[in-house]
């Protein structure tokens, strides 16, 4: 507490512990031991779970063992599949980053360090459920089996782009794969997810929805709209907050303010609010499954904060060395999600270094093959591209006269 000795007010402006040139310091981040956080029943009174908003649910310990009440939600085969998804996403990111640098597209956003969140979450949902993602959850598509080549076509805005070149790279859309069309505007989709879930409840359906938002975007007002509506109508929705510590150059303290955690935001709405180790594939899955069960049993919404770290730049337009120490990601105390899951699988005897190296090679080949396939259809500035006609289509179901006039004027 800042007390006011002079009798004069002053403005408090939060600052991160360190800036470029300083030594990374996460000593203020309290990391509870894996397995130490209890697992309430899904229908327990949320008022009795407030502690979960201030701790971190973790399953994998330092030895790579899965421990505690949240362990055991997945088989080893499922975990191996999960490892594969994360590795696919990572290689996909590398290739697309490079493609952007080569001028094959205008823009890209990567997931480095956060792969577990969307990949593990997806496995807690079923066909028919709907995600309302931000730009940093491509793992939902990859773990959901969406064709990678279509993702690339979208990124290249080529003539096979399912979105006809209309959207910025990475703003995918696929109803079939439960992936709502991504908006460039932050937070708008959080309340849409709640509306979708309400509709499912109105129709006495069984499907549930999941909203996604970043730590920075929780400050947006639609975050509030979503929590109010979800709380009032007990919508079957999972409200995910991916706290990767940064919002472009702004550290999470600016959005979080005086609340200890982002999960705490749910407490004022009577929502179960859980914090989970976002770099622990097993923990993410277990918590997502718990929340999905709550939603599907019509008990109500859940808020989940994934504690993770954005290792890469915000986007290809960003250079983080201007605002945070370069070595900060290495100091991040929750480690790397791929390595942690790999070590666990080795620890339980289901995996080995050799098989891992093999899989790395195989994945590289898969991604490169998809890329070759996509590039056959062209890249942003060369080869096939969506037409000017495509630009005029789809504003409405039926093209109104004024647009027809304009299309004619444009000569297409």
């Amino acid at each position: 507490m800042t007390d006011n000795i002079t009798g004069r007010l002053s403005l408090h402006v939060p600052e991160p512990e360190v800036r470029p040139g300083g030594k990374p310091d996460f000593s203020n981040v309290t990391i509870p031991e894996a397995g130490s956080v209890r697992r309430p029943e899904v229908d327990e009174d949320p008022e009795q779970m407030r502690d979960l908003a201030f701790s971190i649910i973790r399953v994998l310990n330092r030895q790579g063992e899965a421990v505690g009440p949240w362990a055991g939600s997945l088989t080893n085969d499922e975990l191996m599949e999960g490892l594969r998804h994360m590795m696919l996403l990572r290689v996909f990111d590398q290739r697309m980053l490079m493609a952007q640098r080569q001028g094959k597209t205008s823009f890209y956003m990567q997931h480095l360090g956060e792969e577990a969140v969307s990949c593990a979450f997806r496995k807690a949902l079923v066909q028919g459920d709907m995600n309302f993602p931000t730009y940093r959850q491509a793992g939902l598509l990859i773990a959901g089996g969406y064709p990678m080549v279509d993702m690339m076509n979208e990124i290249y805005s080529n003539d096979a782009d399912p979105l006809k070149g209309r959207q910025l790279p990475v703003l995918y859309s696929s109803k079939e794969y439960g992936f709502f069309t991504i908006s460039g505007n932050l937070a708008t989709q959080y309340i849409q997810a709640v509306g979708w879930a309400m509709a499912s409840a109105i129709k006495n359906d069984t499907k549930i929805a999941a909203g996604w938002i970043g730590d920075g975007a929780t400050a947006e007002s639609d975050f509030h709209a979503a929590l109010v509506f979800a709380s009032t109508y007990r919508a079957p929705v999972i409200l995910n907050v991916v706290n990767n510590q940064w919002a472009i150059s702004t550290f999470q303290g600016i959005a979080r303010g005086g609340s200890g955690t982002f999960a705490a935001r749910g407490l004022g709405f009577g929502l179960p609010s859980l914090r989970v180790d976002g770099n622990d594939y097993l923990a993410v899955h277990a918590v997502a499954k718990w929340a999905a069960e709550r939603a599907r049993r019509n008990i109500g919404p859940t808020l989940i904060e994934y504690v993770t770290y954005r290792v890469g730049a915000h986007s290809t337009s960003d250079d983080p060395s201007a605002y945070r120490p370069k070595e900060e990601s290495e100091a991040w105390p929750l480690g790397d999600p791929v390595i942690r899951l790999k070590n666990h699988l080795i620890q339980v005897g289901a995996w080995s270094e050799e098989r891992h190296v093999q899989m790395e090679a195989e994945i590289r080949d898969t991604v490169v093959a998809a890329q070759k396939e996509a590039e056959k259809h062209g890249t942003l500035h060369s080869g096939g591209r969506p037409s000017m006609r495509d630009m005029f289509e789809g504003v409405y179901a039926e093209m109104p006269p004024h647009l027809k006039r304009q299309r004619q004027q444009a000569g297409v």
Partner: protein
Amino acid sequence: MPRMTMIEAIRSAMDVSMEHDDDVVVFGEDVGYFGGVFRSTQGLQQKYGKTRCFDVPINESGIVGAAIGMAAYGLKPCVEIQFADYMYPAYDQLTQEAARLRYRSNGDFTCPVTIRMPTGGGIFGGQTHSQSPEALFTHVCGLQVVVPSNPYDAKGLLIASIENPDPVIFLEPKRLYNGPFDGHHDKPVTSWAAHPLGEVPAEYFTVPLGKAVVRRPGSAVTVLAYGTMVHVAEATAEETGIDAEVIDLRTLLPLDLETIVASVKKTGRCMVVHEATLTSGFGAELAALVQEHCFYHLEAPIVRVAGWDTPYPHAQEWDYFPGPARVGRALREMMEA
């Protein structure tokens, strides 16, 4: 045929739409048990149950955002914003989300949402219960903008809007709710009972979007109007004896340019009237289009009579409202030009 006020016609439109299609849901502030502050949804909750007609938390962005999510699921929400003046918190959801889903997703997700809002002045509502924000929607591709001027159209257009596969902004001139109002605020109030367009079929019918109608044929000048101003224009034509052709646009986006151009080519003169603030109002677009398409037929400049470029004041309501005196003066001046 039954006679209805505009409120009754709007209520009836929602009623038959809900009857006709289980996917139609209705919600908004005070819309459920109470039936809306203008009583437009009275009885719907009782008839269709709490999960198809309900009250919401006061959050316009939430209302529209939730409606978009529901529409993406497959419902056809028809929501109420209590006053058009309160749509601003929802402006992002309306213009960047509802209007964009289809385009953005190449038709994978669509947004058949209808957003009803009482609009316009004439009830001493001051700055925040009197606005006419139509031009803030007509600039947004992906939206459709409808303004009925009478009970018959209100019902038919609202049903068509709810059915429409894309988002519709449905602006209800609140001063017309209980009677046709021609701007003579000092004369006794008239009711819809006596007006031919107060006759409204009880059953399901539609009035197509995108079609204007000539309310009063004439040869001297074309007056383009919508909502309350249709009645002001009609009354002014009678009172001035100027043989104006009054066109009720009904849908502003997409616009029925054909009907407009045919009329102006015939009359050689065009006036646009609206209640909204002049600068960058929808009248600007109409004037721009008319001079573009009828340039060689125009005998005088197109004149706009509109709300002044000030907020809608409380005490000076009738100084602000472009009533028959102002429209009449402008018409006479135009005929002399």
